Protein backbone atom coordinates (compact mmCIF):
# COMPACT_ATOMS: atom_id res chain seq x y z
CA UNK A 1 0.00 0.00 0.00
CA UNK A 2 1.52 3.29 -1.12
CA UNK A 3 1.29 6.33 1.16
CA UNK A 4 -0.83 9.35 0.27
CA UNK A 5 1.48 12.07 -1.03
CA UNK A 6 -0.96 14.70 -2.29
CA UNK A 7 -3.91 15.55 -0.09
CA UNK A 8 -6.70 17.86 -1.22
CA UNK A 9 -9.00 18.58 1.71
CA UNK A 10 -12.39 20.35 1.56
CA UNK A 11 -11.16 22.75 -1.11
CA UNK A 12 -13.38 25.50 -2.46
CA UNK A 13 -12.33 27.92 -5.16
CA UNK A 14 -14.01 30.68 -7.12
CA UNK A 15 -12.93 33.34 -9.58
CA UNK A 16 -14.63 36.49 -8.32
CA UNK A 17 -18.23 35.37 -7.92
CA UNK A 18 -17.99 32.36 -10.18
CA UNK A 19 -17.75 29.14 -8.19
CA UNK A 20 -15.33 26.74 -9.89
CA UNK A 21 -14.61 24.06 -7.32
CA UNK A 22 -16.83 23.04 -4.45
CA UNK A 23 -15.84 20.88 -1.50
CA UNK A 24 -13.15 18.92 -3.34
CA UNK A 25 -11.47 16.02 -1.58
CA UNK A 26 -8.76 13.96 -3.16
CA UNK A 27 -5.97 11.73 -1.91
CA UNK A 28 -3.29 10.83 -4.40
CA UNK A 29 -0.94 7.99 -3.59
CA UNK A 30 2.75 7.78 -4.31
CA UNK A 31 3.47 6.47 -7.79
CA UNK A 32 -0.04 7.16 -9.04
CA UNK A 33 -0.79 8.19 -12.60
CA UNK A 34 -3.96 10.18 -12.19
CA UNK A 35 -6.01 11.61 -15.02
CA UNK A 36 -8.26 14.57 -14.27
CA UNK A 37 -11.17 14.35 -16.67
CA UNK A 38 -14.15 16.57 -17.10
CA UNK A 39 -16.00 19.08 -19.23
CA UNK A 40 -14.51 22.40 -20.31
CA UNK A 41 -14.85 24.89 -17.50
CA UNK A 42 -15.29 22.04 -15.03
CA UNK A 43 -12.27 23.16 -13.07
CA UNK A 44 -9.58 20.64 -14.15
CA UNK A 45 -6.90 23.22 -14.80
CA UNK A 46 -7.92 25.17 -11.70
CA UNK A 47 -7.52 22.06 -9.56
CA UNK A 48 -4.09 21.41 -11.11
CA UNK A 49 -2.98 24.97 -10.40
CA UNK A 50 -4.25 24.69 -6.83
CA UNK A 51 -2.15 21.55 -6.33
CA UNK A 52 0.87 23.39 -7.71
CA UNK A 53 0.30 26.31 -5.39
CA UNK A 54 -0.13 28.76 -8.29
CA UNK A 55 -3.66 29.41 -7.01
CA UNK A 56 -4.71 29.46 -3.36
CA UNK A 57 -7.94 27.82 -2.24
CA UNK A 58 -10.70 30.00 -0.74
CA UNK A 59 -11.41 27.29 1.81
CA UNK A 60 -9.75 24.01 2.69
CA UNK A 61 -6.12 23.13 2.09
CA UNK A 62 -3.74 21.18 -0.10
CA UNK A 63 -0.73 19.31 1.23
CA UNK A 64 2.04 17.68 -0.75
CA UNK A 65 4.17 15.37 1.40
CA UNK A 66 2.46 17.05 4.33
CA UNK A 67 3.62 20.52 3.32
CA UNK A 68 2.20 23.47 1.44
CA UNK A 69 2.80 23.19 -2.34
CA UNK A 70 4.96 26.31 -2.30
CA UNK A 71 7.27 24.71 0.26
CA UNK A 72 8.01 21.75 -1.99
CA UNK A 73 7.97 23.70 -5.26
CA UNK A 74 11.46 22.46 -6.15
CA UNK A 75 10.12 18.89 -6.26
CA UNK A 76 7.24 19.71 -8.61
CA UNK A 77 7.35 19.63 -12.39
CA UNK A 78 4.71 21.49 -14.37
CA UNK A 79 3.85 21.35 -18.05
CA UNK A 80 1.30 24.08 -18.78
CA UNK A 81 -1.19 23.96 -21.59
CA UNK A 82 0.25 25.11 -24.89
CA UNK A 83 -1.28 28.53 -25.09
CA UNK A 84 1.21 30.48 -27.13
CA UNK A 85 1.64 33.40 -24.81
CA UNK A 86 4.12 35.42 -26.76
CA UNK A 87 5.19 34.07 -30.10
CA UNK A 88 7.64 36.85 -30.89
CA UNK A 89 9.53 36.56 -27.63
CA UNK A 90 13.23 36.19 -28.41
CA UNK A 91 14.10 33.16 -26.29
CA UNK A 92 15.86 29.96 -27.34
CA UNK A 93 14.72 26.43 -26.60
CA UNK A 94 17.76 26.08 -24.33
CA UNK A 95 16.86 29.16 -22.29
CA UNK A 96 13.26 28.01 -21.89
CA UNK A 97 14.49 24.63 -20.64
CA UNK A 98 16.92 26.26 -18.23
CA UNK A 99 13.97 27.99 -16.53
CA UNK A 100 13.31 24.62 -14.94
CA UNK A 101 16.58 24.95 -13.01
CA UNK A 102 15.56 28.24 -11.39
CA UNK A 103 14.21 26.52 -8.30
CA UNK A 104 17.52 24.73 -7.73
CA UNK A 105 20.21 27.33 -8.12
CA UNK A 106 19.53 29.53 -5.13
CA UNK A 107 20.64 33.11 -5.64
CA UNK A 108 23.39 32.40 -8.13
CA UNK A 109 23.01 35.01 -10.82
CA UNK A 110 23.91 32.76 -13.74
CA UNK A 111 23.28 29.19 -14.80
CA UNK A 112 26.22 26.86 -14.31
CA UNK A 113 27.75 24.32 -16.70
CA UNK A 114 25.94 21.61 -14.80
CA UNK A 115 22.61 23.37 -15.33
CA UNK A 116 23.29 23.48 -19.05
CA UNK A 117 24.29 19.84 -19.13
CA UNK A 118 21.10 18.83 -17.32
CA UNK A 119 19.05 20.96 -19.72
CA UNK A 120 20.70 19.23 -22.67
CA UNK A 121 19.96 15.82 -21.18
CA UNK A 122 16.31 16.78 -20.64
CA UNK A 123 16.03 18.03 -24.21
CA UNK A 124 17.62 14.83 -25.47
CA UNK A 125 15.06 12.83 -23.53
CA UNK A 126 12.19 14.46 -25.44
CA UNK A 127 14.06 14.37 -28.75
CA UNK A 128 14.59 18.12 -28.98
CA UNK A 129 18.34 18.40 -28.43
CA UNK A 130 18.97 19.40 -32.05
CA UNK A 131 16.59 22.32 -31.62
CA UNK A 132 18.36 23.77 -28.59
CA UNK A 133 19.41 26.95 -30.35
CA UNK A 134 16.10 27.48 -32.18
CA UNK A 135 13.77 30.27 -31.14
CA UNK A 136 10.80 28.88 -29.22
CA UNK A 137 8.37 30.87 -31.37
CA UNK A 138 9.47 29.09 -34.55
CA UNK A 139 8.51 25.62 -33.26
CA UNK A 140 5.25 23.80 -33.90
CA UNK A 141 2.79 23.26 -31.08
CA UNK A 142 3.94 19.70 -30.52
CA UNK A 143 7.61 20.61 -30.51
CA UNK A 144 6.97 23.42 -28.05
CA UNK A 145 5.18 21.01 -25.77
CA UNK A 146 8.21 18.72 -25.76
CA UNK A 147 10.36 21.65 -24.70
CA UNK A 148 7.92 22.41 -21.87
CA UNK A 149 8.21 18.77 -20.80
CA UNK A 150 12.00 19.03 -20.86
CA UNK A 151 11.72 22.20 -18.76
CA UNK A 152 9.72 20.24 -16.18
CA UNK A 153 12.08 17.23 -16.25
CA UNK A 154 15.26 19.24 -15.86
CA UNK A 155 14.43 19.79 -12.19
CA UNK A 156 14.23 16.03 -11.69
CA UNK A 157 10.79 16.31 -10.08
CA UNK A 158 9.07 13.79 -7.82
CA UNK A 159 5.69 15.02 -9.03
CA UNK A 160 4.73 15.86 -12.58
CA UNK A 161 1.63 17.93 -13.37
CA UNK A 162 0.59 18.21 -17.00
CA UNK A 163 -2.22 20.22 -18.53
CA UNK A 164 -3.62 18.74 -21.74
CA UNK A 165 -0.32 17.25 -22.90
CA UNK A 166 -1.90 15.73 -25.97
CA UNK A 167 -3.52 18.83 -27.42
CA UNK A 168 -1.80 20.07 -30.58
CA UNK A 169 0.45 17.02 -30.72
CA UNK A 170 0.81 14.62 -33.62
CA UNK A 171 -0.14 11.01 -32.97
CA UNK A 172 3.35 9.59 -33.31
CA UNK A 173 4.75 11.87 -30.61
CA UNK A 174 1.67 11.14 -28.53
CA UNK A 175 2.67 7.50 -28.31
CA UNK A 176 6.28 8.40 -27.55
CA UNK A 177 5.07 10.83 -24.90
CA UNK A 178 3.06 8.19 -23.11
CA UNK A 179 5.89 5.72 -23.25
CA UNK A 180 8.08 8.39 -21.71
CA UNK A 181 5.49 9.07 -19.03
CA UNK A 182 5.17 5.36 -18.32
CA UNK A 183 8.92 5.17 -17.82
CA UNK A 184 8.87 8.26 -15.60
CA UNK A 185 5.97 6.91 -13.61
CA UNK A 186 8.26 4.28 -12.09
CA UNK A 187 9.71 7.02 -9.91
CA UNK A 188 7.41 10.01 -10.41
CA UNK A 189 3.82 10.59 -9.34
CA UNK A 190 1.95 12.00 -12.33
CA UNK A 191 -1.23 14.06 -12.58
CA UNK A 192 -2.54 14.76 -16.07
CA UNK A 193 -5.42 16.99 -17.11
CA UNK A 194 -7.17 15.72 -20.18
CA UNK A 195 -10.47 15.96 -21.96
CA UNK A 196 -9.67 12.82 -23.88
CA UNK A 197 -8.91 9.63 -22.03
CA UNK A 198 -8.94 7.24 -24.97
CA UNK A 199 -5.23 7.70 -25.65
CA UNK A 200 -4.40 7.69 -21.98
CA UNK A 201 -6.18 4.45 -21.39
CA UNK A 202 -3.37 1.96 -20.97
CA UNK A 203 -1.23 4.26 -18.88
CA UNK A 204 -3.37 5.86 -16.20
CA UNK A 205 -3.83 4.15 -12.87
CA UNK A 206 -6.73 6.22 -11.60
CA UNK A 207 -9.21 8.78 -12.80
CA UNK A 208 -10.84 11.76 -11.16
CA UNK A 209 -13.83 13.36 -12.80
CA UNK A 210 -13.84 17.10 -12.23
CA UNK A 211 -17.06 19.04 -12.69
CA UNK A 212 -17.17 21.55 -9.87
CA UNK A 213 -16.88 18.60 -7.49
CA UNK A 214 -14.52 15.67 -7.87
CA UNK A 215 -15.28 11.98 -8.12
CA UNK A 216 -12.34 9.70 -7.69
CA UNK A 217 -12.03 6.24 -9.24
CA UNK A 218 -8.96 4.30 -8.28
CA UNK A 219 -7.05 1.69 -10.17
CA UNK A 220 -9.23 -1.22 -9.10
CA UNK A 221 -12.16 0.28 -10.93
CA UNK A 222 -10.34 0.73 -14.18
CA UNK A 223 -9.89 -2.28 -16.38
CA UNK A 224 -8.92 -2.32 -20.02
CA UNK A 225 -12.42 -3.17 -21.19
CA UNK A 226 -14.20 -0.50 -19.21
CA UNK A 227 -11.89 2.31 -20.22
CA UNK A 228 -13.66 3.02 -23.44
CA UNK A 229 -16.74 3.74 -21.43
CA UNK A 230 -14.95 5.71 -18.77
CA UNK A 231 -14.38 8.18 -21.52
CA UNK A 232 -18.03 9.14 -21.17
CA UNK A 233 -17.50 9.99 -17.57
CA UNK A 234 -17.46 13.77 -17.86
CA UNK A 235 -20.40 13.84 -20.20
CA UNK A 236 -22.54 11.95 -17.76
CA UNK A 237 -21.41 14.20 -15.01
CA UNK A 238 -22.83 17.24 -16.72
CA UNK A 239 -26.25 15.66 -16.71
CA UNK A 240 -26.48 15.46 -12.98
CA UNK A 241 -28.58 12.63 -11.72
CA UNK A 242 -27.75 10.22 -14.52
CA UNK A 243 -26.18 7.17 -12.96
CA UNK A 244 -22.78 6.10 -14.07
CA UNK A 245 -22.73 3.20 -16.46
CA UNK A 246 -19.44 1.65 -15.55
CA UNK A 247 -18.18 3.08 -12.34
CA UNK A 248 -20.05 3.50 -9.14
CA UNK A 249 -22.75 6.08 -9.42
CA UNK A 250 -21.53 9.46 -8.34
CA UNK A 251 -24.86 10.06 -6.68
CA UNK A 252 -24.51 7.01 -4.49
CA UNK A 253 -21.03 8.02 -3.56
CA UNK A 254 -22.32 11.40 -2.54
CA UNK A 255 -24.90 9.85 -0.31
CA UNK A 256 -22.29 7.61 1.24
CA UNK A 257 -20.20 10.55 2.16
CA UNK A 258 -23.07 12.48 3.63
CA UNK A 259 -24.07 9.64 5.82
Amino acid sequence: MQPVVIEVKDVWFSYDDHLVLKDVNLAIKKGDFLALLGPNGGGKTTLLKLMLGILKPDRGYIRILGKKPSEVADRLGYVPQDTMINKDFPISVMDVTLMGRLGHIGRRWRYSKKDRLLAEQALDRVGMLNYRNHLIGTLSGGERQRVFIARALVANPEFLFMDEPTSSVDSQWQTELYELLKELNKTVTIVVVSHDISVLSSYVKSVACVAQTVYFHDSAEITQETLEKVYHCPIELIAHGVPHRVLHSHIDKDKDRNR
Partner: protein
Amino acid sequence: MFDALHYEFMQNALFAGLLASVACGIIGTLIVVNRIVFISGGIAHAAYGGIGLAFFIGFSPLLGAVGFALAVAFIIAFISLKNKQRADTVIGALWAMGMGFGVILIDLTPGYNVDLMSYLFGSILTVPRSDLWLMIPLDVAILVIVTFFYKDFLAMSYDDEYAGLMGVPVKTLYFVLLALVACSVVVIIRVIGLILVIALLSIPPYIAEQFSRSLQGMMLISTLLNMVFTIIGLWLSYTFNITSGATIIMVAGTCFFLSTLLRSLRRKRIPETLKSAD
Protein backbone atom coordinates in the same frame (compact mmCIF):
# COMPACT_ATOMS: atom_id res chain seq x y z
CA MET B 1 28.59 68.12 -37.01
CA PHE B 2 32.14 67.21 -36.03
CA ASP B 3 33.09 70.88 -35.77
CA ALA B 4 30.16 71.31 -33.46
CA LEU B 5 31.62 68.71 -31.10
CA HIS B 6 34.14 71.31 -29.99
CA TYR B 7 31.36 73.06 -28.13
CA GLU B 8 30.71 71.84 -24.63
CA PHE B 9 26.93 71.90 -25.14
CA MET B 10 27.30 69.56 -28.11
CA GLN B 11 29.51 67.17 -26.14
CA ASN B 12 26.96 67.17 -23.33
CA ALA B 13 24.17 66.58 -25.80
CA LEU B 14 25.93 63.62 -27.36
CA PHE B 15 26.82 62.16 -23.99
CA ALA B 16 23.27 62.60 -22.71
CA GLY B 17 21.95 60.93 -25.85
CA LEU B 18 24.24 57.94 -25.38
CA LEU B 19 23.33 57.59 -21.69
CA ALA B 20 19.65 57.75 -22.55
CA SER B 21 20.16 55.14 -25.28
CA VAL B 22 21.53 52.63 -22.79
CA ALA B 23 18.61 53.11 -20.41
CA CYS B 24 16.11 53.02 -23.28
CA GLY B 25 17.59 49.93 -24.87
CA ILE B 26 17.63 47.84 -21.72
CA ILE B 27 14.44 48.97 -20.01
CA GLY B 28 12.57 49.53 -23.28
CA THR B 29 13.16 45.87 -24.14
CA LEU B 30 11.67 44.77 -20.83
CA ILE B 31 8.75 47.17 -21.35
CA VAL B 32 7.97 45.80 -24.80
CA VAL B 33 8.19 42.09 -23.92
CA ASN B 34 6.18 42.60 -20.74
CA ARG B 35 3.56 44.65 -22.62
CA ILE B 36 3.68 47.55 -20.19
CA VAL B 37 4.05 50.39 -22.68
CA PHE B 38 0.92 52.10 -21.38
CA ILE B 39 2.06 51.82 -17.77
CA SER B 40 5.39 53.36 -18.72
CA GLY B 41 3.57 56.22 -20.44
CA GLY B 42 1.65 56.81 -17.23
CA ILE B 43 4.82 56.90 -15.15
CA ALA B 44 6.54 59.26 -17.60
CA HIS B 45 3.70 61.77 -17.70
CA ALA B 46 2.99 61.66 -14.00
CA ALA B 47 6.65 62.53 -13.43
CA TYR B 48 5.70 66.03 -14.49
CA GLY B 49 4.10 66.45 -11.09
CA GLY B 50 7.53 66.00 -9.57
CA ILE B 51 9.05 68.59 -11.85
CA GLY B 52 6.34 71.07 -10.83
CA LEU B 53 6.93 70.27 -7.18
CA ALA B 54 10.67 70.79 -7.58
CA PHE B 55 10.15 74.18 -9.21
CA PHE B 56 7.70 75.19 -6.50
CA ILE B 57 9.90 74.23 -3.59
CA GLY B 58 13.09 75.02 -5.39
CA PHE B 59 15.26 71.95 -5.90
CA SER B 60 16.58 70.01 -8.87
CA PRO B 61 13.68 69.24 -11.25
CA LEU B 62 15.25 65.92 -12.24
CA LEU B 63 15.42 64.91 -8.59
CA GLY B 64 11.77 65.84 -8.21
CA ALA B 65 10.96 63.80 -11.30
CA VAL B 66 12.78 60.74 -9.94
CA GLY B 67 10.94 60.86 -6.64
CA PHE B 68 7.56 61.41 -8.20
CA ALA B 69 8.05 58.82 -10.93
CA LEU B 70 9.11 56.24 -8.36
CA ALA B 71 6.08 56.95 -6.17
CA VAL B 72 3.72 56.66 -9.13
CA ALA B 73 5.49 53.49 -10.29
CA PHE B 74 4.86 51.86 -6.92
CA ILE B 75 1.22 52.89 -6.88
CA ILE B 76 0.72 51.52 -10.39
CA ALA B 77 2.57 48.29 -9.57
CA PHE B 78 0.41 47.80 -6.51
CA ILE B 79 -2.84 48.45 -8.36
CA SER B 80 -2.04 46.39 -11.43
CA LEU B 81 -1.10 43.40 -9.27
CA LYS B 82 -4.26 43.80 -7.22
CA ASN B 83 -6.80 44.43 -9.93
CA LYS B 84 -5.61 43.76 -13.46
CA GLN B 85 -8.91 44.56 -15.16
CA ARG B 86 -9.25 48.06 -13.76
CA ALA B 87 -5.59 48.96 -13.75
CA ASP B 88 -5.62 50.81 -17.08
CA THR B 89 -8.29 53.23 -15.88
CA VAL B 90 -6.31 54.04 -12.74
CA ILE B 91 -3.12 54.48 -14.77
CA GLY B 92 -4.97 56.88 -17.09
CA ALA B 93 -6.13 58.90 -14.09
CA LEU B 94 -2.64 59.03 -12.53
CA TRP B 95 -1.18 59.95 -15.92
CA ALA B 96 -3.40 63.02 -16.18
CA MET B 97 -3.37 63.96 -12.50
CA GLY B 98 0.40 63.97 -12.33
CA MET B 99 0.54 66.42 -15.21
CA GLY B 100 -2.26 68.55 -13.79
CA PHE B 101 -0.54 68.68 -10.43
CA GLY B 102 2.69 69.80 -12.09
CA VAL B 103 1.01 72.52 -14.14
CA ILE B 104 -0.78 73.98 -11.10
CA LEU B 105 2.38 74.02 -8.99
CA ILE B 106 4.23 75.79 -11.75
CA ASP B 107 1.38 78.32 -11.97
CA LEU B 108 1.84 78.95 -8.27
CA THR B 109 5.59 79.35 -8.62
CA PRO B 110 6.57 83.01 -8.87
CA GLY B 111 8.44 84.06 -12.00
CA TYR B 112 8.26 82.84 -15.57
CA ASN B 113 9.68 79.41 -16.30
CA VAL B 114 11.08 79.25 -19.81
CA ASP B 115 12.63 75.92 -19.00
CA LEU B 116 9.29 74.13 -18.82
CA MET B 117 8.92 73.20 -22.44
CA SER B 118 12.27 71.50 -22.31
CA TYR B 119 10.90 68.93 -19.86
CA LEU B 120 7.88 68.27 -22.05
CA PHE B 121 9.64 68.01 -25.39
CA GLY B 122 13.24 67.66 -24.38
CA SER B 123 16.13 69.94 -24.98
CA ILE B 124 19.18 67.85 -25.50
CA LEU B 125 21.25 70.86 -26.57
CA THR B 126 20.87 72.55 -23.19
CA VAL B 127 21.66 69.60 -20.95
CA PRO B 128 23.97 70.88 -18.23
CA ARG B 129 26.90 68.85 -16.91
CA SER B 130 25.13 68.54 -13.55
CA ASP B 131 22.33 66.55 -15.16
CA LEU B 132 24.84 64.17 -16.64
CA TRP B 133 26.10 63.46 -13.14
CA LEU B 134 22.60 62.40 -12.19
CA MET B 135 22.09 60.35 -15.34
CA ILE B 136 25.29 58.30 -14.97
CA PRO B 137 24.43 56.65 -11.62
CA LEU B 138 20.89 55.94 -12.84
CA ASP B 139 22.30 54.22 -15.91
CA VAL B 140 24.76 52.25 -13.82
CA ALA B 141 22.00 51.21 -11.43
CA ILE B 142 19.87 49.98 -14.32
CA LEU B 143 22.80 48.03 -15.80
CA VAL B 144 23.78 46.41 -12.51
CA ILE B 145 20.26 45.44 -11.45
CA VAL B 146 19.25 44.03 -14.83
CA THR B 147 22.52 42.11 -15.16
CA PHE B 148 22.20 40.65 -11.70
CA PHE B 149 18.56 39.60 -12.10
CA TYR B 150 18.77 38.83 -15.80
CA LYS B 151 17.63 35.21 -15.70
CA ASP B 152 14.81 36.13 -13.33
CA PHE B 153 13.65 38.98 -15.57
CA LEU B 154 13.88 36.64 -18.55
CA ALA B 155 11.80 33.96 -16.82
CA MET B 156 9.26 36.45 -15.53
CA SER B 157 8.87 38.13 -18.90
CA TYR B 158 8.47 34.89 -20.83
CA ASP B 159 6.25 32.96 -18.43
CA ASP B 160 5.51 34.65 -15.11
CA GLU B 161 3.38 31.77 -13.84
CA TYR B 162 6.19 29.26 -14.27
CA ALA B 163 8.77 31.69 -12.94
CA GLY B 164 6.66 32.13 -9.82
CA LEU B 165 6.38 28.37 -9.42
CA MET B 166 10.17 28.14 -9.61
CA GLY B 167 10.48 30.52 -6.69
CA VAL B 168 11.32 33.66 -8.64
CA PRO B 169 9.90 36.56 -6.59
CA VAL B 170 7.74 37.69 -9.50
CA LYS B 171 5.80 40.38 -7.62
CA THR B 172 8.89 41.97 -6.11
CA LEU B 173 10.56 41.86 -9.50
CA TYR B 174 7.56 43.63 -11.02
CA PHE B 175 7.98 46.45 -8.51
CA VAL B 176 11.69 46.59 -9.34
CA LEU B 177 10.91 46.69 -13.06
CA LEU B 178 8.51 49.63 -12.71
CA ALA B 179 11.04 51.42 -10.49
CA LEU B 180 13.62 50.93 -13.24
CA VAL B 181 11.13 52.30 -15.74
CA ALA B 182 10.77 55.38 -13.54
CA CYS B 183 14.55 55.82 -13.40
CA SER B 184 15.00 55.46 -17.13
CA VAL B 185 12.17 57.86 -17.83
CA VAL B 186 14.06 60.47 -15.85
CA VAL B 187 17.27 59.78 -17.75
CA ILE B 188 15.44 60.28 -21.03
CA ILE B 189 13.34 63.33 -20.10
CA ARG B 190 16.25 65.67 -20.79
CA VAL B 191 16.84 64.19 -24.21
CA ILE B 192 13.39 64.07 -25.76
CA GLY B 193 11.01 65.17 -23.03
CA LEU B 194 8.45 63.22 -21.10
CA ILE B 195 5.77 63.42 -23.78
CA LEU B 196 8.02 61.68 -26.29
CA VAL B 197 9.73 59.28 -23.89
CA ILE B 198 7.44 56.43 -24.75
CA ALA B 199 8.59 56.44 -28.38
CA LEU B 200 12.24 55.78 -27.55
CA LEU B 201 11.24 53.13 -25.03
CA SER B 202 9.05 51.17 -27.41
CA ILE B 203 10.16 51.75 -31.02
CA PRO B 204 13.75 50.45 -30.94
CA PRO B 205 12.90 47.26 -28.98
CA TYR B 206 10.04 46.57 -31.36
CA ILE B 207 12.38 46.81 -34.33
CA ALA B 208 15.07 44.84 -32.52
CA GLU B 209 12.70 42.02 -31.59
CA GLN B 210 12.54 40.59 -35.08
CA PHE B 211 16.33 40.41 -35.38
CA SER B 212 17.03 39.10 -31.89
CA ARG B 213 17.71 35.58 -30.75
CA SER B 214 17.76 36.38 -27.06
CA LEU B 215 16.54 39.00 -24.64
CA GLN B 216 20.05 40.34 -24.08
CA GLY B 217 20.55 40.50 -27.84
CA MET B 218 17.33 42.50 -28.08
CA MET B 219 18.63 44.87 -25.39
CA LEU B 220 21.90 45.34 -27.23
CA ILE B 221 20.30 45.94 -30.64
CA SER B 222 17.78 48.36 -29.10
CA THR B 223 20.58 50.28 -27.43
CA LEU B 224 22.51 50.53 -30.69
CA LEU B 225 19.38 51.59 -32.59
CA ASN B 226 18.70 54.25 -29.97
CA MET B 227 22.24 55.56 -30.35
CA VAL B 228 21.88 55.70 -34.13
CA PHE B 229 18.50 57.45 -33.92
CA THR B 230 19.79 59.93 -31.36
CA ILE B 231 22.93 60.79 -33.31
CA ILE B 232 21.12 61.14 -36.65
CA GLY B 233 18.34 63.14 -35.00
CA LEU B 234 20.84 65.36 -33.26
CA TRP B 235 22.73 65.97 -36.47
CA LEU B 236 19.53 66.80 -38.41
CA SER B 237 18.30 69.09 -35.67
CA TYR B 238 21.64 70.91 -35.54
CA THR B 239 21.88 71.22 -39.32
CA PHE B 240 18.33 72.42 -39.93
CA ASN B 241 17.89 74.17 -36.60
CA ILE B 242 14.79 72.24 -35.56
CA THR B 243 13.69 70.80 -32.19
CA SER B 244 16.02 67.93 -31.33
CA GLY B 245 13.58 65.69 -29.42
CA ALA B 246 10.97 65.79 -32.15
CA THR B 247 13.63 65.15 -34.81
CA ILE B 248 14.95 62.09 -32.99
CA ILE B 249 11.41 60.73 -32.72
CA MET B 250 10.74 61.31 -36.41
CA VAL B 251 13.90 59.38 -37.32
CA ALA B 252 12.87 56.52 -35.00
CA GLY B 253 9.28 56.62 -36.24
CA THR B 254 10.32 56.40 -39.88
CA CYS B 255 12.44 53.34 -39.14
CA PHE B 256 9.54 51.90 -37.15
CA PHE B 257 7.24 51.98 -40.15
CA LEU B 258 9.90 50.63 -42.48
CA SER B 259 10.48 47.71 -40.12
CA THR B 260 6.75 47.09 -39.75
CA LEU B 261 6.53 46.91 -43.51
CA LEU B 262 9.45 44.49 -43.55
CA ARG B 263 7.80 42.37 -40.86
CA SER B 264 4.51 42.06 -42.74
CA LEU B 265 6.35 41.22 -45.98
CA ARG B 266 8.22 38.46 -44.16
CA ARG B 267 5.00 37.11 -42.69
CA LYS B 268 3.32 37.05 -46.09
CA ARG B 269 6.12 35.01 -47.56
CA ILE B 270 5.67 32.16 -45.10
CA PRO B 271 2.16 31.01 -46.14
CA GLU B 272 3.30 31.02 -49.77
CA THR B 273 6.10 28.57 -49.09
CA LEU B 274 3.67 26.43 -47.15
CA LYS B 275 1.33 26.41 -50.11
CA SER B 276 4.01 25.26 -52.49
CA ALA B 277 4.93 22.47 -50.11
CA ASP B 278 1.43 20.94 -50.34
